[in-house]
């Protein structure tokens, strides 16, 4: 490990498993010798609301929060959640976005439409946008709850860690019974983005 540091912002909808995804990411960084801090909110925010995790790694991390405009990587588990927190991404940062649409209350009750042209709006934020269908990948495995690890797999292309670190992290952090399915989900997610898509240069 050198002086590499980075800020990863995870955004999703309460119930999508972002907390567990960030646990696995943290563990992978720790196993690779980084200092890591992460911050998230429990309680009220988890009832289907927008949830975020701030994950920061480097030789020494102070603030547990990422500054707006400073995130190197935004991992969004739902399409408009990427848009909601797009202002956290730094210029030239990478976005890995699950194309899944989960209707917020105003859309579900018909007061407004689910926004159109989200991909275009995201591309206007960064040309390093990777839109993946994590739900389809999880459903292909007949395990809808694996969306989170599919996203970890897709995001892993942009983090300075070897594949083995994630797989070891999954073994360390998950109950034995679900390690196999989550490891498959991680690999399926990794396969969604071609290798060599680019590192998280900083």
């Amino acid at each position, binding site marked *: 490990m050198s002086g590499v540091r980075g800020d990863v912002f995870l955004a999703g909808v309460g119930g999508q498993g972002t907390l567990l995804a960030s646990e696995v990411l*943290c563990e992978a960084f720790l196993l690779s010798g980084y200092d890591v801090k992460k911050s998230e909110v429990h*309680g009220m925010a988890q009832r289907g609301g927008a949830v975020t995790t701030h994950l920061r790694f480097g030789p020494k991390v*102070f603030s547990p929060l990422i500054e707006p405009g400073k995130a190197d990587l935004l991992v969004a588990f739902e399409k408009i959640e990427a848009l909601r927190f797009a202002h956290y991404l730094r210029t030239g940062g990478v976005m890995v976005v699950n194309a899944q649409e989960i209707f917020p209350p105003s859309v579900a009750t018909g007061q407004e439409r689910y926004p159109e042209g989200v991909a275009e709006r995201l591309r206007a934020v960064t040309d390093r946008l990777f839109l993946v269908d994590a739900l389809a990948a999880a459903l292909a495995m007949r395990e809808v709850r694996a969306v989170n690890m599919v996203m970890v797999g897709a995001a892993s292309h942009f983090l300075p860690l070897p594949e083995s670190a994630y797989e070891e992290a999954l073994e360390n952090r998950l109950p034995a019974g679900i390690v196999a399915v989550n490891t498959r989900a991680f690999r399926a997610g990794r396969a969604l983005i071609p290798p060599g898509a680019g590192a998280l240069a900083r």
Partner: protein
Amino acid sequence: MLSGNEAIARGAYEAGVKVASAYPGTPSTEILESLVSYEGVYAEWAPNEKVAVEVAIGASMGGVRALAAMKHVGVNVAADPIFTASYTGVRGGLVIVTADDPELHSSQNEQDNRHYAVAAKIPMLEPSDSFEAKEFTRLAFELSERFDTPVFLRTTTRISHAKGVVPLGEPSGPPFPPGFARDPAKWVMLPVNAKRRHVLVEERTRALAEFAETFDGNRIEWGDRSLGIVTAGVSYQYVREAFPEASVLKLGLAYPLPSRLFREFAAGVSRVVVVEELDPYLETHVKALGIPAQGKELIPIVGELDPRIVRQGITGEAVPLRAQENVPPRPPSLCPGCPHRGLFFALKKLKVAVLGDIGCYTLAALPPLGAMDSCICMGASIGNAHGMEKALGPEGKGKAVAVIGDSTFLHSGIPGLMDIVYNRGCSTVILLDNRTTAMTGAQENPSTGKTLRGDPTHRLDLPALCRALGVEHVYVVNPHDMERTESVLRREIRRPAPSVVITEAPCVLLPEHRKKQRPVYEVIPDLCTGCKACSKLGCPAIEWVPFTPEEAVAEGKKATQKGMARINPLLCDGCNQCPPLCKFQAILERKA
């Protein structure tokens, strides 16, 4: 890697804590959930924070190290024993954790509990990350015994729920064998004794202030002398991030504060700025010493901070930032299948004022249900309903009800119900029994029949308790059956006597519910007329699919139909609340 809460639990374990008691509350809940897993520690959920502190005081009297944990507003509930425990002091170390919630991530107010330390004359440690959370917890027990005082440990959400790397230590044995030694002058706070103890409290505070001057948790980090920042807690991390070169006075002891250290620091820098979340607590102290300093004129008093806010506040230079994208809001909502939804849907039809309380069900205040009219604090709903009834007089009968969850009722709702009966009120109290403390993540409580450890215990009988308080009319309904629930409510709100309606159905987040085979419903597109009757439930699983006139015709509908409902099979919990709402029988169980 530990969260601040896990680090506090670990620190308490390493300090040899024997008894811990708490009432769950975000962001403090995980302290006890973590502590219960350590061998040799007795940890319990108390029915409320006052009891938790009283249990911890009793354990301290018995000669062991004890801890009570709560969220910031929990200290309000526990303030009574805390203020007098300051006088009695301790035998075994006594630590009270207050987890504050700047930004109100999951709270009803944003109070700054550092003021409690001053008011109760109890020292307060304030860690700035998980590492310090563990170290300071250990230290808190030592200080407690050394200075014969309870000790506050204050965290904020970004300490409690942030994770960092923490090296683990070994647990130390108890400092002395347990046992109670009679000492009425210390423990019996009759005025004659308390008067003498107060003198000791003042002496203790002077001794602690002297300790604060040399305590290594209060430290000056000299850097560039043109800017000196006074800070504590998580704000220290934001300061270090935003101003790596600046001189910093970092305080680990929030009370009492070290005056000489402040003066030394101020003398060494040309500009002093105080960076702290919420109230100008440190700033007031700095200014009282006659030190010219800036604080709240640069740093917001509302909400939490981050490095950007700190940097901009101090430099005064706004760094341009991409504008936030405009997207539909996504507030939290009641889960699909939540039994509370059925109750509130029925309640809304009665057009009564709904005096609410603290729990998941407070979310029923949000659209489209919009079925809650007040929320003040734990247990307030019942007293509120009684007060409103007395205010409105006979014409007000049937115009207001109280809605309160099972755990909240046991926390502090019981005296309110007693008041209604005692003072001949006739309010209707709706008790939501979902067999757990759901909002904080499904904790056990006296009505669940299980302890924090998961061991079986006496299950409190809610209807019997209400009857024992003198309520003659107690009815239990299934809130998923909204028609019956509505008719019982209609009857009870008119009754010229106090009544309690208990809605009984398990929280959908409970593992035993999740494991159950449940049906999934679907909307038959050919039958849906787009009337939106089902949408009014506000269930996240019911999605509206809008049409243009052309799309409507293509779907075989009238061009005037604006859209139709769809049930998301990934979200549907099979609660059966929506099918009866559809006049066209368009909602049916999905065939496997």
